[in-house]
């Protein structure tokens, strides 16, 4: 199935070459678990501070159970803040 991953801020270094600034479109196994996708990009658990699927927050405890669906957009930030 097709999903997309977006990596921001210091996590951009994990992105393979591509045209988009943040996003890469991927083909993954059906029902891939969110944390397995994160691991594929060599992102440490403590680096994946803010994780969204289609804009919705996914708590760290859910990420080992959460299955991705076709068309999902996974967005990940390291610990950041502002204001």
């Amino acid at each position, binding site marked *: 199935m097709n999903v997309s991953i977006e990596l921001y*801020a*210091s996590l951009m270094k994990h992105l393979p070459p591509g045209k988009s600034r*943040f996003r890469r479109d991927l083909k993954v196994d059906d029902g891939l678990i969110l944390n397995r996708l994160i691991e594929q990009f060599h992102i440490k658990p403590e680096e994946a501070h803010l994780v*969204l699927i289609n*804009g*919705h*927050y996914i708590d760290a405890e859910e990420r080992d159970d959460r299955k991705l669906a076709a068309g999902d957009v996974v967005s990940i930030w390291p610990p950041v803040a*502002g*204001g």
Partner: protein
Amino acid sequence: MSWTRKILRVNLSKGSCTSEPLNMEWAKQYLGQRGLASKYLSEEIDPKCDALGPDNKLIMATGPLTGTMASTAGRYSVICKSPLTGAIACSNSGGFLGAELKFAGWDMIIFEGKSEKPVYLLVQDDKVELRDASHLWGKTVWETDDILHQTHQDPQLRVACVGRTAENGCLYAAIVNDKHRAAGRSGVGTVMASKNLKAVAVRGTQGVGNLEDAKTFMAAVDAGKGVLAENAVTGQGLPAYGTQVLMNVINGVGALPARNMRDVGFEGAENISAEAMAEPRASDGKPNLTTNAGCFSCTIACGRISTVDKTHFSVKDKPQYHGASGGLEYEAAWALGADTGIDDLDALTYVNFLCNEDGFDPITYGATVAAAMEMFEEGVITTKETGGIELKFGNTEAFVAVTEALVANEGFGPDLALGSKRLCEKYGRPELSMTVKGQEFPAYDPRGIQGMGLTYATSNRGACHLRSYTVSSEVLGLPIKTEMGDAEGKPELVKAFQDVTALVDSAGLCIFTTFAWGMDNIAPQIDAACEGDWSVEGCMEAGERIWNMERMFNTAAGFTGKDDNLPPRLMKEAIKSGPTEGQVSRLDEMLPQYYQIRGWTEDGTVTKETQQRLSL
């Protein structure tokens, strides 16, 4: 140096400068800076006075930790009645001026009355004098700073001043120190200019002293710095990306307002984000971001120093803007960018330079232009009013042109100088002003982030994110994650953030420390430096006391619970798409609970019992 225990009172009508002892009874209740100066203001002015008349006072105040080695301890605040809102104004600034004032031996300066002619205040330790500023009137902030440094031949002189927008009566003019740090919100610069006070120039050489328990203080400071360094946000995220890293975050979660909050979600967000600022540009291979920067004693250093592409149309023939200067922070980038529908990073950086150069609040300014753009698109404002400018959302050239008109006080500039509330009222569309108590919203849509709706509605200085930054919890998960779409639990969350922030703003510290520090990190630093009970409980009570005192000032100025409101757009027009689709602000559910938790009446008045409990 904890409190210097000295206040400088400057009567501009009489031209006198006098020293008086700090009221230590009040200091032990209100700490310093925001809290203590607000207490002085509450006691000394009629809250119903004309904000731009001689009866208003303007206080520049440091906190007891300002000037010490505590991390971020360089803050000062400007307190007065706001001409933009009519409520209490308290604008906080970093840079180096606050610490310098402390080194000169003063906790605060109270300006009263109005000078007959333009003056500036020169403070050199105990030697203070008002000097003629006729030659500075009509000059920009940057020119004024340069002239005063040339005049006094002291590179360590620190200058806070107003630019031309303040002189011209722009209702959201700032006081800018160190050329690009600003007490930016609520028009405190307009009040300063109304008193014919152009600048305050300070040099202090008296160093640090007067700490209650210096050894314990240094241990607490050291521990605090360790926490900041080890924390991923304050140790790595903020120095590398600054506040601007939020542009994509807030857009991603469906809470980035766009085009005068008509929309939520901005398609150009990534082009004006922190990540974009760090990319080499095509023309010269250099990024917009030149370096990060820190204020006095700061170990975070989130500040952005930027350059504009020299070939960009906005600065092509203007070499004075080709150097590095204060760059875009998140709130400015949102207001100047997403809210106007513009994603041209160079143009926004140039306009931000103008905000610094002539001293005006980029949040209120961007939001005011956004309101004008919506009225232009609806045909309420036409090229007749704008002087031929097609002021549509996304029109970069038009935005640059009206900004230059504001600075020059020409064409459509004087209309924009009103702020969005008065501008929208003037053109018969008051509902298009995105304000609370007359002050414009910052960069978080209260339909998407429920706690921010309550934050804005109840903020004592009008819409503001820096009175209780619940984004920290609702979006970023700091210190704990709460669901941003939930209204439940938000009254308690907002109250806790408001009280903590009031205390931090009264200490001389930067609120950004609270991304890593809890009160158990902050209280020991204050307690070791200051006389009095500054335990965690004592600090929280002081924060609550300060919040209630500000509320009582506003009540006396004529505000009621009816002013704790949001524009109808945010209560009725649901978000059209994205992860927060269908949401409106649920302020109606949260506000009564908030009043109850605060110990206020149903119409938002501080009860006698609450006043007694907090020794108000």
